[in-house]
């Protein structure tokens, strides 16, 4: 059982203010992900929670007990915080076998040999390393090494696990596999996870809640994956979460226009401003040969499972994706230069005048 509370934490390196007045609460038993671009200070926060760094100002509580307090200059050292930590570069000790790596926390805790053996073998099975316990780390693949690190972090029965971009060094297939496994382990063991990543796909897949940080270390939105994906607080978040299209939309006399074409949609925009921007994902566009906003295919790109089209709409380029099977069945395979019609399933609306990110997708 563990929760984390970050209270008005400040941290800077020389002149670089990484964190300013940061407040966060991570609830007991949840998988909480801190998602942000590289250099936003997310790893620094993880290191402060772990005790490898000390906040310049502010307090950190783990399980309602204070572990770092800048007022009293007090800090509980990392070895007494009762955490499991998994690092991006695995940090598996190369001079110890898989067994010895995983057993180390128990040896430090001076447990008896029999107990160590039993517990380690349990963990070895749990993380899928059965029969590999005698190997040295150099004889393991990257994925297996990360399993060792995971096992080592789990063996002390920590109530809190900190994971710092643990999947970064793995190849795409393994990354997909491991993220499902971490999620399954967390559910099974009921531990609290604090996960740091810049990969939105991983974050969406494993988190109960996500906090999104911008480059300056400011938390911009906290919510469930579905929540932030469907209702992003601003265009930065929208853009960060996947391939994004932005189209300028004029609002006039209760009607919506993209360039000179009128846009018909079921759900009216939830904000009213003269200059709107419609944001949508590639799969939110339905292309057809009959009606909708007119566009011209500028690039047709077959990717296997999907057809990827770039479509010129007024003066902008829109990127869409349609399932290959669907395209073949419904005569939606377009050639470059062909005319097509667009309708939109789902749109997030932003006020053009208060957008944070630059305009993209202009026709070159």
């Amino acid at each position: 059982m563990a929760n984390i509370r970050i209270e008005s934490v400040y941290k800077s390196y020389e002149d670089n203010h990484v964190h300013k007045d940061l407040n966060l609460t991570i609830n007991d038993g949840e998988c909480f992900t801190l998602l942000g671009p590289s250099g936003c200070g997310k790893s620094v926060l993880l290191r402060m929670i772990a005790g490898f760094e000390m906040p310049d100002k502010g307090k950190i509580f783990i399980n309602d007990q204070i572990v770092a307090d800048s007022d009293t200059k007090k800090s509980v050292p990392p070895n007494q915080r009762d955490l499991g930590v998994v690092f991006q570069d695995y940090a598996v000790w190369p001079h110890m076998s898989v067994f010895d790596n995983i057993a180390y926390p128990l040896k430090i805790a001076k447990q008896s040999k029999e107990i160590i053996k039993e517990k380690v073998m349990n963990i070895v099975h749990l993380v899928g390393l059965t029969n590999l316990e005698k190997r040295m780390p150099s004889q393991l693949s990257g994925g297996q090494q990360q399993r060792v690190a995971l096992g080592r972090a789990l063996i002390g029965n920590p109530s809190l696990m900190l994971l710092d971009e643990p999947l970064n060094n793995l190849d795409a297939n393994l990354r997909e596999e491991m993220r499902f496994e971490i999620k399954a382990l967390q559910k099974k063991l009921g531990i609290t996870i604090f996960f740091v990543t810049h990969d939105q796909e991983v974050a969406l897949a494993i988190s109960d809640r996500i906090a999104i940080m911008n480059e300056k270390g400011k938390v911009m939105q906290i919510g469930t994956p579905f929540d932030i994906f469907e209702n992003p607080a601003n265009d930065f978040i929208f853009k960060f979460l996947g391939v994004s299209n932005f189209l300028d939309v004029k609002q006039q006399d209760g009607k919506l226009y993209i360039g000179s074409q009128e846009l018909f949609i079921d759900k009216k925009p939830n904000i009213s401003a003269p200059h709107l921007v419609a944001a949508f994902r590639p799969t939110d566009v339905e292309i057809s040969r009959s009606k909708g906003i007119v566009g011209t295919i500028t690039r047709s790109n077959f990717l296997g499972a999907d057809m990827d089209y770039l479509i010129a709409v007024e003066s902008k380029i829109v990127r869409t994706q349609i399932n290959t099977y669907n395209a073949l069945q419904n005569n939606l395979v377009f050639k470059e230069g062909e005319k097509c019609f667009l309708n939109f399933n789902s749109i997030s609306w932003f006020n053009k005048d208060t957008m944070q990110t630059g305009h993209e997708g202009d026709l070159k």
Partner: protein
Amino acid sequence: MSYIKLVDVTKKFGEVIAVNNLNFEIGEGECFSMLGPSGCGKTTTLRMIAGFEDIDDGEIYAGDKTLSSKKRGYYLPPEKRDFGMVFQAFAVWPHLSVYENVAFPLKLKKLKREEIVQRTNDALKHTNLLDAAKKSPADLSGGGKQRVALARALAINPKVMLLDEPLSSLDPHLREEMRFEIKDLQKHYGFAIVYVTHDQSEAMALSDRILVMKLGVVQQIDSPLKVYNEPANKFVFSFIGLSNFLNVSVSDKGIKTKDSGIVSYPKYPIDDALKTQKDIVLASRPSEIGFLSEGGIPGILKRKSFLGEIIDYAVDVNGAEIRIQKGRKEPGPNTGETCHLDFYHPHWYSCND
């Protein structure tokens, strides 16, 4: 019109047969990809075309010129083959400037000074490197270095460009961008491309035709769409994208699993040859499976993951995991529920494959 032609080409390394009896032709201006897992012989084939490896049997031609012929004991060294080539690790020369790198092959051709300058600048222009001409390649990013390698390869205006995993040292975002740059260069210069990759989506996006290879043996040569939609065998199917395989028993009326009723599939009939076997493999893509309210093949939903635009489902069907991907707005079952699967584009393979 075919330009490169391989006839019965075989290559051995010691006892190991790296490439076995290879036959194919590549047309002028065609983009031809060789796709396969590492160690399948695709790079060796490219290096035989380039001339870095001799052949143990067969012939290789370019136009009316013989490049290698075992029968006649003939072998033209790489420097005389007039190909452009780009390597995975960029291989730009760090002691020469960007301009000197690109001008190097032209200088070897002993062209006139003005022509060297003009053709180098032309190649730099089309690879967006004019501003970097005086820089050292060490100061460029990975993408920049690979552009220098491309410019250097196309400076002599070759009829064929050999590309050996040219994008796999780049980060994913850049990889996609460079794909289109290569395509655009091909459109402008009109060279044929022989492209080696292990990344199926790269091969799909770039190629006119794809050759899929396994252990030195050709599995299929077809257009990308055909390779995707009508894979020649189970290996090609599994290599070309995320795959599901399900063992089913087959009878005249249709197919069934242990827990299902008999389901018939009029749209994608089973080969007569396969029908004689009792058990066969149903292969299917995650995006080509739907949920029915009843009937179909039953299973239990083990995991439902929200991945943004799509939702990823893992369904347990008699111990086999079936992955299904649906748009996030499409309805689907919840974890733990029983669901009914509709395979709307199945492929059938023998259990013995």
